[in-house]
């Protein structure tokens, strides 16, 4: 582990230096707050504020990509666009989400040949949160405003300077590459970090999370889903903004005897999600679709991956056009388990 500090006035130089050998993706100002974008001018990078409106999942798992191209005679595997990349300023919840996505895309020994090359080429330099966003609840789901999972370097904003802490070998190499700009962190810096983390944790709301998997199974036919289903509009905002939602659709697009096979994000909230070719749809109502989203995250993923697929970033809450709040649903499930 390497702890170094960087004067904020040298941040642009730092990003420029590391950006010489790799693509830089970082938060930039956007009409919806901040958003991750490929950056060629480091002066545009924004560290202030809370987490971005949409997650950086797209860096590793793009909204859509071509898997194959084909014509009447042959099928060719499309090579994923892979570039050496530094994702700078991802929040600890987002970095942790990568660690969860890794489990999906390597599940059962099957390595996704499109996701993994990107993951391998992407260094994640995360940024600890001093101020939580309006719907953040990372500490309730096993995360922390200074969580380390999924990142190579964790950055702390100490006001006039940043403390950068390497978490992996790749992270250490990255910091050494820019060592001309940094200084060794002092004990006082490290103390300041501890204090900032403790303060940020204090500001985060605690949400009751349903832990009893049997009780969650028992909630399948609970009445609570009915009203939630009526409220849920059936759009894809929650899943598309979510850093851990990973469901996709595969579509063939053909034209004049040639075509391509496209993988694109999909969501259980869409009525088409489970529509069979026969016309049968096992999830006929929005209740069932909304329930699927919650139980997939908090029950099925725990069964399959030993961990709930929620990092508490709150984006599904801030972005929901129907005003639905996952935290409230989780608390209802907890109280339902108690009364069962």
């Amino acid at each position: 582990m390497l702890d170094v500090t960087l004067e904020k006035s040298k941040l642009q130089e730092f990003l420029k230096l590391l950006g010489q050998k790799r693509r830089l993706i970082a938060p930039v100002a956007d009409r919806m707050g901040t958003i991750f974008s490929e950056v060629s001018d480091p002066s545009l990078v924004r560290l202030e504020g809370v987490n971005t409106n949409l997650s950086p999942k797209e860096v590793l798992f793009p909204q859509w990509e071509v898997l194959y191209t084909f014509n009447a005679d042959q099928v060719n595997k499309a090579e994923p666009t892979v570039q050496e990349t530094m994702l700078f300023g991802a929040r600890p919840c987002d970095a942790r989400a990568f660690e969860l996505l890794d489990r999906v895309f390597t599940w059962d020994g099957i390595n996704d040949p499109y996701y993994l090359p990107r993951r391998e080429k992407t260094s994640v330099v995360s940024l600890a949160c001093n101020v939580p966003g309006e719907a953040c609840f990372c500490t309730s789901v096993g995360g922390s405003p200074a969580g380390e999972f999924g990142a190579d370097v964790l950055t702390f904003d100490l006001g006039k300077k940043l403390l950068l802490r390497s978490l992996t070998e790749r992270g250490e190499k990255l910091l050494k590459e820019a060592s001309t700009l940094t200084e060794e962190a002092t004990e006082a810096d490290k103390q300041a970090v501890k204090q900032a983390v403790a303060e940020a944790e204090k500001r985060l709301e605690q949400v009751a999370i349903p832990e009893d998997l049997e009780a969650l199974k028992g909630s399948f036919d609970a009445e609570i889903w009915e009203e939630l289903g009526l409220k849920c509009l059936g759009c894809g905002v929650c899943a598309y903004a979510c850093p851990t939602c990973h469901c996709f659709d595969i579509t063939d697009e053909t034209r004049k005897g040639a075509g391509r096979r496209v993988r694109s994000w999909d969501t259980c909230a869409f009525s088409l999600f489970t529509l069979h070719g026969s016309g049968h749809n096992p999830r006929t109502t929005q209740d069932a679709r909304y329930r699927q989203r919650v139980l997939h995250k908090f029950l099925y993923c725990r069964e399959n991956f030993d961990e709930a697929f929620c990092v508490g970033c709150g984006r599904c809450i801030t972005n929901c056009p129907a005003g639905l709040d996952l935290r409230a649903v989780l608390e209802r499930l907890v109280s339902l388990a108690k009364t069962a």
Partner: protein
Amino acid sequence: MKQVEDALRKEVAKLFEEKEVDIFVGHEAASLPLKTSACFVRSSEEVDRLVWNRSCAANLAAYLPQLFKRPPGLKGAWTPPKVGVVVKGCDSRSIVGLIKEKQIPRDRLFVIGIGCEGMIDRHKVARALGTAGLAEAKIDETAVQAIGTDGTEKQIDIAEALAASCQECQHRHAVLADLALNEASASPAEVSRYANVAEFEDKSPDERFEHLVTELSRCIRCYACREACPNCYCEECFAEETTPKWLGVTTDLPDVVFFHLGRAFHQAGRCVDCGACVAACPQGIDLRLLNQKINKDVEELFGAEASLSLEEAGVLCSFRMEDDQSFMTEP
């Protein structure tokens, strides 16, 4: 507003006591400031869930057709429920449209109309606040006081904080109501309508194209605009049809533009400019512009605004010899 809210609760309780409705659709507080959520009240004991404030932006008409659908798998006779709903001017026009398009039955509906003074655009307030999250919002007659998660405070004039649709709204009272509340307080907005459209029309074709590209390239294909729109009730949207497949699934410009232009054209003569699509969009796309351009054309060509009365047929559902036909060209 508190008075209107109290009156609403009282009237809804009466509807349940008199068995006028089986279910009442209103707004309830959501967990985040300046947000509400549709709520489905089923008895007079639940009426205190109902709220009426500056955050009731959702167009509740969008939630109605599902209540009149026969539950899937149900065998035997089924009577649709009697549904009550609280509406603003725009919502009431959507209801008129849905009745005329036979998506909801007038005789199973009890409409409470509230004279609306305009709803706050949450995105605008968040934007004014800067990069912090919105922790709290205090609203009085003249201003919104926004407080960020980092403690920053910002005061925004209420007229500025209103949704664009509300700033230009000409129909603040319900055009269809079984009961009207807050009748006196709302008057039409004194602004030039279609100001945004006029500005767009004045641009050169290249500039117009660039504007559309800037806006629509933000789209993430989540369909929140479509789902929040009362007019988008199709069982199968053209965007997802597979035989034929009209457009692809990508976020490439041709797919995105096709979806949004297709949706806008399907709104011709039907859009009531409620702003629900704008409020729903997680990317803050100016979805209103396309719809307003078409609304302006419809008004100029046919002298009609969408869904102002049950009696008048929609402009694309009727033909008059004197209708403007200048847009027709020789093949």
